[in-house]
């Protein structure tokens, strides 16, 4: 009896640390390089190996949690909804929806964690230096890109040169809007994950950050809110876009 008890205790002692250490491990892939931490690290520890190597444009940093299929599920549901709306739509709208669906299929998605990622800020402010939970993450750091990506109810996705403090609506003049689009509103997805709905009359003077996404929404039809909801879902999914 005592032998069994000793044997079982020994097993527990050996197995427990393994399970504990597996559950506490954090794997962060920064661009292409993977870093593993045995204990959950803080943001400063994660950024320390790379933070000062290059002139990173911190506002455009993106953190994603891997190991979750939530964005993929949402993508499937969104594509189904787009297909459904396309069947009921007229030619212009159907064409735009098809183009959008093709665009969405190409996206690489992961669950975005929207929080400020800035090595300097994290070193001075405790709130900006949270601790990672055990799991796998992708951290994308980039230099300042001088471009703004526009997609949505337009002929095709465009990469436009960033125009400094020019308002988001000033980019519209370079686009061929679909007949199904509305030019009265624009969705702005800043690189730091902030989403803003811009109204041309009420708030015309908001500028996209370098690397932002501009979504030209579909004009909502009378007596139906479907396209409004679609616009919101596309924008919510676009936040999870890695590439």
């Amino acid at each position: 009896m005592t032998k069994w008890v000793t044997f079982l205790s020994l097993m527990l002692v050996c197995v427990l640390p393994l399970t504990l250490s597996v559950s506490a491990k954090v794997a962060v892939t920064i661009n292409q390089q993977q870093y593993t931490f045995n204990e959950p690290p803080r943001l400063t520890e994660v950024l320390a190996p790379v933070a000062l190597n290059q002139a990173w444009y911190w506002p455009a940093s993106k953190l994603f949690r891997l190991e979750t299929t939530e964005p993929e599920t949402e993508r499937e549901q969104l594509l189904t909804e787009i297909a459904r709306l396309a069947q009921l739509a007229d030619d212009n709208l159907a064409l735009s929806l098809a183009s959008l669906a093709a665009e969405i299929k190409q996206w690489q998605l992961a669950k975005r964690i929207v929080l400020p990622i800035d090595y300097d800020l994290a070193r001075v402010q405790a709130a900006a230096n949270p601790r990672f939970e055990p799991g796998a993450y992708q951290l994308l750091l980039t230099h300042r890109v001088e471009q703004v990506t526009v997609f949505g109810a337009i002929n095709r996705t465009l990469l436009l040169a960033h125009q400094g403090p020019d308002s988001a609506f000033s980019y519209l003049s370079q686009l061929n809007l679909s007949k199904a689009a509305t030019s009265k509103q624009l969705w702005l997805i800043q690189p730091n994950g902030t989403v803003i709905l811009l109204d041309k009359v009420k708030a015309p003077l908001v500028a996209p950050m370098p690397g932002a996404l501009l979504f030209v929404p579909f004009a909502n039809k009378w007596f139906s809110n479907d396209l409004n909801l679609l616009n919101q879902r596309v924008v919510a999914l676009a936040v999870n876009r890695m590439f």
Partner: protein
Amino acid sequence: MPAKFPLFKLSAIALLVIASSAEAAPLPAYPIWQTAKSASSQTAHGGVGLIQIPTARMGKEGDVWLNYTDNEEYRLWSVSIQLFPWMEATARYTDVRTRLYSNFPGFSGDQTLKDKGLDVKFRLWQESLYFPQLALGFRDFGGTGFFESEYIALSKRLGDFDLSMGMGWGYLGTAGNTTNPFCELRETYCKRPRGFSGRGGKIDYQRFFKGPASLFAGLEYQTPWQPLVFKLEYEGNDYSRDRAGVLPQDSRFNLGAVYHWQNFVFDLNYQRGNTLGFGVHYRFNMHSPPAPKLKPAMFAVPESRAHIPAEIDFNTLTRNLYVNAGYLPRGIHVYKDEFIVHGQQIVYRDDVEATERIGRVIAGQLPQHITAIRLVDYESNMPQVEKVIDVDAFVEATTFSKLQTDIATTYVRQQPDEAALANVQLRQDRGFYTGAETFWVQSFGNPEKFYMYQGGLFLGGGYRFNNQFSINGAAKLTLLENFDSFNFKVDSQDTPLPRVRTYVREYVTRSKFTVDNVYGHWQKEIAPAVFAQAYAGYLETMFGGAGAELLYRPVDSTLAFGVDLNYVRQRSFENDFGFFDYKTLTGHVNVYWQPSFLPDTRLTFNIGQFLAKDKGVNIDFAKRFDSGMIVGAYAAITDVSSEEYGEGSFTKGFYLSIPFELFSLRPSKGRGQLPWIPISRDGGQPLNRPIRLIDITESRSPFVN
């Protein structure tokens, strides 16, 4: 080719200083890359518009404008508030320089004619790409109506020009330069009835949109120099029926220039082709958060509580709670795995911040086996609300041990648990207390002097026997006043109502030192969320007697209701402790409601019998802004007719409640109230009960703080 936009831009240095919004919260303030066009400006009468004519434009919600304009014959002081994005209200005093207040020097000396007025404007349609903004407004609708008008206005922005046009009736339509469309529909709309209904102070619906109508139009031009704006308007008034007399008008065109400087706006205008006018306006916004305060840094919480000793240092803890968290503990107890604190918050208005501070002070000293903190907040010696903090979740949130945390989710607010309360034996409060408060009473528009005031101290004291029963008193000591300028004590209006309030001048001028109240008070929470109180003695300046109140107010509920009943007798104004013969039963059913469709507002209904034995309802509407300021209005509609009531027709008033914190460098819970009561007579007057249950249970579902 990108569209051209304004010539004025911030310098590159300013651009570097602006931090990008990196928060995860939805819709942060827009980063301002370009200087916006100048904000709206006020008309001479108050309210957003051009010079004499209003436009359909609205200010930002929470904007308060204080205006002074001088237009030769008229001087106008006004306060304009943008209560909601779609509603603007303006209150105004007019000085008519060319007329006297009255023909009786013994009554009003040589004071010139004064009048007060109220305006309201509603936005009916927001401007969109193709459609203009549409607004409907009523000027000077409550009162004797010197400038009484109704109007519809349209405004559309085209580049640097803001174009407006509209149609006005009444004062704005005196010239009658167009046909009144309502006159085409119905004969009764062709002529505007004269005079005012009741005894003034009522909304004269039967005059709306009647009589001559005029079209008006105007434009505002934003010059390339950002602070300067030009105005040009064509008005629909020919000044043939003005209260100041027939004013010569050489031109219907008025022009003006407006200069914005920080929170001030200065304007100069040329009206009627022959009159120079000017105005000074000050704007602030009630949604602006208070300036940062000097307060101690919040305690840091250790990530791991493993090394915290099992013995808690209660002395240090109590001191830290008071100094760092503004919390006065009445009792601290550890029961199994719970840390229980009973106390009162005396410094921080914001409940979320207050709770976080307390949690941080305590968590840093809690040994690992304790998993919950139970905070019981007291007010007026009764436990009001309990917050149960999950210590592990709280520590995780305050040490940012997860990528995304929210402190508000680590605790719950609830009705104090009976069983938990029973676990803590606290000493009852007992003993003498004293206090002093300053007061300032002011009154505008009096016949003797426009501005009359009285200031001094309320000296309070009392003895508390236990948490339920106490004896309280307050005396009023007047230090500064000009009330000795009164020419009369009681007005000569002969009304059938008992004079329950119109002897006010007698009461406030009898002596520099008067006993305001002396009464015994009993209170108890008789059932969960049901409070009761009873009081007897000299209850307020003018009445004494006995009464009781019940209130049902669950924690964090948008609805509370109760009832109060009082039997009172009128106090004598000849001495401190005598009574007159007048007695009455007065009581109300009280409903307090914070509707979900109007955020940050509270509606109060007091239905019952008032002091003059009239029956009806007092409706109070209060709106709280982000800064903590509260704007309120109330009116009492009773079975007293306007003839019986007298001048003013019914009791109404406005008030502005301002947290003292806005004027101080340190956080504070105190408030001051600025009432504005156009006329107060005997109808619709409630008893000023010394303590109201709705006030002492405030922390259960905070509105006032």
